[in-house]
């Protein structure tokens, strides 16, 4: 269902993850934190990866850079990035150059992703030298541009230490450092956790815009479905180290197939509408040691549990507009379990090649309630 044709060198590259397994060495042996995950990030899309704490999101994200930290290691699978080849096989300088050069990573706790003893500018220069950038002046100019684009006073920020910047500013600096070398694959791990509402909205908007402007392939990791809904074209849901559902955002949110996705969405209280519709998901998420090593990982919390779930791993397979890993919603059974909700199909499934086009309902602007651009305020 996905297009995997390699892009031209200038266009956004594609990312193909195949059968990726990442294990951590623990007292109880090597346990998989990510298991048999196959996923495609189509060129030019924003994919949102959601899952609960410990479901393996960060691990998966690090795998994209072949940077899983010990005691973890990639034990199987491949990560093909357009124009780079299989990252898992990269070693040494090549790998290092790929990081930052081709793949930008915005850290989970970007608040602390800066060296406290050096100004942002100095760290930028370190970055430039590490990647053998000839023209450091141009690099600085580029960084300043990027920062200005995100509504910051570039010169001031470059001259600041980490502790002089607020959380939102640091996050933007993180994004700048991920992009300044012209990376076209960008991974953002929980870019808005620990930011407050308004800042979060602001950062999400920036991500969206820059993604569009620079022609990126973006993976946004979060545990907040709202964030994915805001920013992503495509959503992937992880649970217990597996991918359980992947598809276009609106389609998946509007009509979740996998019982976990459905439970998750239902467990979110809404701002309007009937508040009592929100339903808690029973049970609790598994940890590395309690993930069953065979059968469906979600079965213990699943309302649709069948005998087969205990023994057989559900395949992650295509059902219509998306991929799902569930015995109960397998292609044949899809409609038997979800008939009641089939009417939700109203959301138009959309091609992910179109960058941000028409995704967002245009803001009403008739009565002067115009959302001003954030960057104006900052430079004032």
């Amino acid at each position: 269902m996905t297009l995997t044709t390699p892009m031209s060198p200038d266009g956004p590259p594609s990312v193909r993850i195949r059968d990726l397994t990442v294990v951590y060495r623990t007292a109880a042996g090597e346990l998989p934190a990510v298991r048999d995950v196959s996923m495609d990030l189509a060129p030019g899309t924003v994919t949102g990866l959601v899952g609960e704490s410990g479901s393996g999101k960060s691990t998966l994200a690090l795998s994209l850079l072949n940077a899983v930290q010990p005691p973890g290691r990639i034990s199987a699978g491949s990560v093909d990035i357009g124009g780079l080849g299989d990252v898992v096989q990269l070693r040494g300088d090549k790998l290092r150059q790929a990081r930052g050069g081709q793949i930008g990573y915005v850290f989970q706790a970007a608040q602390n992703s800066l060296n406290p003893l050096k100004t942002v500018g100095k760290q930028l220069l370190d970055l430039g030298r590490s990647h053998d950038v000839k023209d450091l002046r141009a690099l600085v100019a580029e960084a300043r541009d990027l920062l200005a684009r995100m509504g910051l006073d570039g010169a001031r920020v470059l001259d600041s230490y980490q502790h002089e910047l607020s959380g939102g500013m640091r996050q933007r600096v993180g994004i700048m450092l991920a992009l300044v070398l012209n990376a076209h694959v960008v991974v953002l791990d929980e870019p808005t956790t620990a930011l407050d509402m308004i800042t979060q909205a602001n950062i999400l908007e920036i991500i969206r815009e820059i993604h569009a402007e620079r022609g990126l392939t973006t993976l946004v990791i979060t545990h907040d479905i709202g964030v994915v809904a805001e920013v992503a074209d495509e959503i992937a849901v992880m649970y217990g180290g597996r991918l359980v559902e992947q598809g276009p955002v609106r389609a998946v949110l509007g009509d979740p197939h996998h019982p976990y996705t459905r439970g998750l969405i239902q467990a979110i209280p809404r701002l309007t509408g009937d508040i009592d519709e929100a339903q808690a998901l029973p049970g609790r998420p598994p940890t590395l040691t309690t993930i069953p090593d065979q059968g469906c990982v979600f079965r213990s919390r699943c309302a649709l549990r069948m005998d087969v779930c205990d023994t057989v791993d559900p395949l992650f397979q295509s059902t219509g507009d998306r991929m799902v890993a569930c015995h109960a919603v397998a292609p044949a059974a899809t409609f038997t379990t979800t008939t009641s909700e089939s009417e939700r199909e109203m959301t138009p499934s959309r091609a992910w090649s179109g960058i941000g086009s028409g995704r967002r309902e245009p803001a009403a602007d008739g009565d002067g309630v115009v959302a001003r651009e954030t960057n104006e305020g900052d430079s004032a």
Partner: protein
Amino acid sequence: MIWVVLTFTFVIVSIMPGDPVQAEYELLLQQGHSPQQAEAQTAMLHRFRPTGSVLEQYLEYMGSLLRLDLGQSVVTRVDVSTILGEATRWTVIPVLIGTVLSFVLGVLIGVYAAIKRSGKLGDALTLSGSLLRGLPDFVVALILAAIFATLWPVLPRSGAVNILYEPGFNLDYILSLGQHAILPIATYAISSYGGWILAMKSSVVTVLGDDFILAAELRGMKRSVIFRYIARNAILPLFTIFALSIAALFSGAIFVERIFNYPGLGMLLINSIGRRDITVMTGAFLLITAAVIVANIVADMFYTVIDPRVRRAGDAA
């Protein structure tokens, strides 16, 4: 602070028993002087003993201290500041060299131990670090002396320099200085190095766990850059310990100088206690205390200079 310490010392020193003159007299007898000769030698000393009540002495002492006058030796009549000045350089220079040496070594090995912390070698290094930190400096000094001065007598175990060489900037003199200082310096270095390993290791482990290191790696920074990041951030907290460690070494100097008969402050303190040279004793003790306090202050200032978090905050004020 210094004042509290000072008063405390003064009180103790004042109630200290023993009379310097008597001590000197009997020692001369033991050396074979006749009683007359011994008396002639010591008669003058009687006049040098402090007089008046303890309170008067105290007030007088404090008064002269305010004028930066430490008084004169009760036994020799030489200005205490001259005596201290002479002794201090013999302590400060080896202590500093030893500290810097052990600091550099300890920091390097500490980094290594932190990086290899799950391996056998890293473990061994850490353990050796705690062992050396736990080991008293006199044990180190005695072992060194036993090896290099007794079993295999290659290094001198007394004095600071060979008197035959003309003092000044000439090779012989400097070599002789070095030869005499090796064992004290080695002792200072060895006994403080364990602390550095441990401190550096735990500091590096903390920094390694910091997100910005992983972030730098994920941005594809060069290893050397990352290493610099680690090192600089990890060393920072060590500077406060640096001050404390110098203080500890000043105490250790007492043993080291006694064992290697090195003419520094520690030796001065021991000798002046033995001779009941009250003013020198107080002066030496005061100097050591002041050194500790100053080291702390300097460390604080240094910290402010190198840590932008503190520096900029200070600027803003």
